[in-house]
């Protein structure tokens, strides 16, 4: 599974959406109507899944933002 697919699965599960609705350029606040608590849960699950720490949700707006963040953290490890 790619990082995108893993994150897509987490978002689909948390927000109860279809895979087709969760693409790289999807903005989860505007397009998926995720609020702050949804985002906390998604970040929590990503932290557990990839064993990384996401310090702040600032600047994380699209699926691509999350994928890039995770990729960068994985490289740094």
């Amino acid at each position: 599974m790619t990082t995108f697919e893993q994150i897509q699965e987490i978002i689909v599960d948390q927000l109860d959406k279809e895979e087709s609705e969760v693409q790289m350029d999807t903005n989860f606040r505007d397009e998926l109507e995720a609020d702050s608590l949804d985002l906390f849960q998604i970040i929590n699950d990503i932290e557990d899944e990839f064993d990384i720490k996401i310090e702040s949700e600032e600047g994380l707006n699209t699926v691509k933002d999350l994928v890039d963040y995770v990729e960068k953290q994985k490289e740094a490890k």
Partner: protein
Amino acid sequence: MKTFGVTIHSTGKYVPDNSVYNETLTQWMDTSDEWIRKRTGIKKRYLSKGEDTSDLCIKASLDALNKRRIDISQIGLVIVATMTPDSQSPSVSSKVQAALKANNAMAFDLSAACSGFVYGLSAAEKMLRHMDHPYALVIGGEVMSKTLDWNDRKTSVLFGDGAGAVILKKESGAESFIAEDLHTDGEKGHALVSGEQAVRNPLCEMNVKDGFLVMDGRAIFNFVTKSIPKSIEQVLKKGSADIIDVDYFLLHQANARIIEIVSKKLDRPLSKFLMNIENYGNTSAASLPILLDESIENGTIKLNSGQTIVLSAFGGGLTWGTLLIKI
């Protein structure tokens, strides 16, 4: 030697006679009913028009005492769990003791924020076993509205005022308290701060602090959603109980969404998780005894029925804890 158990004998509650709906808050700050309901599950809360924490605690205690006739002189202990006392001295519990004329009771306040009631029950049931008198009164009471920054819409919409009381009885041949799992993580204490007092004396004049409640929402959310399912699993293990056998889970009423997450993580239906946050908001240490009393009043929970109940709370400190109870 005769061995005694401790049981829950009676419960009571009191809230100020002044409910404030989300719509009213929109007149005070830039918020909306939909925003508050979607994120928290809260529709209204009760706010004091001047009654202080001791007033609420005294009335909740009288409610509990009026349901079961007991001899006040037989109460040996009064504990009030609160993070919003009228004053540091006298304690709220001293005022309750005086109002009830519970002259044989020792009384003290317990500070463990929203976990206070669970901590209080845990302390009281142990103390009561070694006391001369058969009854203990444990109260969770808060006037949260006096510690809120009413210019901060993120926190002020979440909380409410109220008090709940439980009378514990020491008796032979019965036992309510099966197992407990209590924790503190002081290193994360900065995630919820309230009632700070600056040092002011002839040697030092620190900046006066406003003492308002300040909360790091994400840190608290992470802490709760990770710690509480674990704590519940732990208490069941300690009590050799199966999660299937738990009749009801009573979680601190901080946020309906958090309770939904815990239900999902434990894979138990949401109907097993009793909730009244929509009508009260987060009343901190008062939330569990209010929920317990309301659930007994409406017949969901029955005293002396042997139902298996999990009480779990979490809050500033950070503190958290779970009790496994046969009620």
